[in-house]
């Protein structure tokens, strides 16, 4: 069976179920790299130019770990996923950067996704991607439809039950309510963790941020746990037309959780991220207007776990004290 490698990084967290369905329906097998670990982290780090941002370096590490385990590597070049809303340059350059930096990588499948070019163009791209596996156009069409359904089911699963992508993908179907961390839900701190999916769900990169917060007694919500439409509405209040596809996850989610009167907002960004450098300011601005505690964690490959934990503890203590005073 043909094996398609999917690096567990970047767009993986948002689209893996769709990709898996698509390739499996076409009779291929998907191979996913293991969760980020030290070896992946440092091998990716050693290949890329120093200025490259952390998640992209990690991505190369995942590609390296998969290189000898698959026949194709699936690295879509994502230009745009919404009308006039773009992805970062690095997503577009990913397939070519991988080719340059990971020469041992098998043949790369690099469909260019640009929804600005319309539906027809997307269909054409899906056909040419599918044609690597079958010449039956009907089969490709069916696989694409099923992938689309898998994607909406995946999103629904997260937003309806408040689970993270990792939990859904791994099939851990426990929703927050019965996780038994703290039975008294009303007294729990509600903290929103905002940022790109590939940072907030990569436990190696963010030093297990979410589970640490939960251990400190907080109820964590992420952009994926809210309904897409609600985030869109919140975002449109602040920016009439988004320039980046990530705005909904940062500005939209920030505004949404601020309006939902969360006790604290933690924005997780990586050093050198272009879109973040422009967007985070807006969330901070709004948080000040709402009077909600706001913490910006900027991660890079040197972030030490100790420093991060201290800052988290201080933030959570502050939020707790504040809540006690307010109530």
């Amino acid at each position: 069976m043909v094996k398609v490698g999917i690096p567990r990084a970047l767009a993986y967290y948002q689209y893996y179920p769709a990709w898996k369905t698509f390739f499996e329906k076409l009779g291929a097998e998907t191979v996913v790299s293991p969760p980020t670990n030290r070896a992946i982290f440092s091998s990716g780090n050693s290949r890329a130019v120093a200025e490259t941002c952390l998640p992209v370096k990690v991505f190369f590490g995942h590609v390296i770990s998969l290189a000898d385990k698959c026949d194709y590597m699936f690295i879509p070049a994502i230009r745009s996923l919404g009308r006039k809303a773009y992805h970062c340059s690095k997503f577009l350059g990913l397939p070519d950067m991988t080719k340059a930096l990971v020469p041992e990588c098998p043949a790369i499948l690099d469909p260019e996704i640009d929804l600005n070019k319309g539906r027809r163009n997307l269909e054409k791209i899906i056909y040419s991607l599918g044609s690597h596996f079958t010449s039956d156009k009907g089969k490709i069409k069916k696989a694409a439809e099923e992938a689309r359904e898998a994607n909406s089911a995946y999103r629904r699963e997260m937003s309806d039950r408040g689970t993270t992508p990792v939990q859904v993908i791994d099939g851990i179907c426990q929703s927050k309510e019965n996780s038994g961390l703290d039975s008294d839900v009303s007294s729990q701190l509600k903290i929103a963790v905002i940022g790109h999916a590939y940072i907030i769900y990569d436990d190696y990169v963010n030093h297990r941020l979410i589970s640490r917060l939960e251990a400190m007694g907080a109820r964590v919500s992420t952009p994926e746990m809210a309904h897409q439409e609600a985030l869109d509405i919140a975002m449109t209040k602040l920016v009439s037309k988004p320039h980046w596809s990530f705005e909904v996850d940062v500005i939209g989610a920030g505004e949404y959780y601020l309006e939902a009167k969360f006790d604290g907002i933690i924005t997780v960004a990586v050093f050198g991220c272009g879109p973040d450098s422009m967007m985070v300011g807006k969330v901070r601005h709004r948080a000040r207007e709402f009077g909600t505690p706001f913490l910006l964690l900027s991660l890079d490959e040197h972030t030490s776990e100790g420093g991060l934990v201290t800052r988290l503890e201080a933030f959570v203590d502050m939020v707790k004290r504040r809540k006690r005073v307010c109530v």
Partner: protein
Amino acid sequence: MRVGIPHFGLVYIPIKAIARKLGAGDNELIIPPLTSQRTLDLGVKYSPAEACLPYKLTLGNLIEACELGADTLAHARGTGICRLGYYAKNQEQILQDLGYNVRFLTIDVSHHKFRSIMRLVKDMTNNAPWPEVISAFYFGMSKLFALDKIEKVVHKVRAIELDKGTANQIYREAIKAIDEATTGKEVRRTTGECIDKLNRVPIDPTANPVKVGIVGEIYVVLEPFANMDIEMELGKLGVEVKRTMSLSRWVKYSFVLNPLGIDEWKEVHKAAMPYLKRDVGGDGWESVGEKVVHAREGYDGMIHLAPFTCMPEIVAQNIMSSTKEDIPVLTVLCDEQMAKPGMITRLEAFVDLLRFRRKRRGI
């Protein structure tokens, strides 16, 4: 309406010329002081820490324009992948927080460039009749073309002049003279005179200077403050600089030839194809392509300029090192932490390396 503009190389000269020609009426064009350390300090102070250098410098310019009483600001806007699309939106917020109640007029530099600039000119001049607008625009552009033409000669002379600094002196005078010229005829005459003067500068006839191509992100390439006068410093080291990118070229193609379907970067993109298949925003694709082209054309080396954390240029930088066409590339990242002595040391080392390579190859 008092319209302020950010600086971008010498672009203020043609803009000033257009405004003066059209006699803006109640409207006034405010050109902030040339980009200086103060501009940078202001920009850095009020920008998000991780914003790129062009963002910080243009914000500094705009603040300085506001201090001079601007109530409207003209700025570039891009649709596409790089941060440029966000500049105006974000900077407007910052200026408002600082208490300047300003309005932004943006020029789309990705699509409909000509229409968008003409609209702005019309707005600024209370709807002056089209023939006047076009003729003033033409006059402004003649200055831009004259400046770039002189600069090309300066690049050559600077590398081989016997008395270092002569060409720069002439260039500085030329900028002033062209800025002050009031008619098309005067611009042409001044250009001719300056080029003559440059051609008469005593040079070393036997010199075979090292040739270096300059590529990278357009703002830091064309704004000498941002790149710490890198071209001049290379000239001092006896290096002949060639840069494809220039404002006049941009104007020529965006306004005249692109609409006719002629793409100035076609060859460069074709050269980049085996390594980078698509536009990645900004000037990343062009940087990769130009490396290949420069290597084929027998350049000794290439300097790649990029603002620190520039996304498209990081893509280019990651790819450039592995092209089959081999030519030394020095990537210089520009940000507010950059210091001139450090940069000069790097340039000296780079130029030494290029000379050594030449010697080894027996040139």
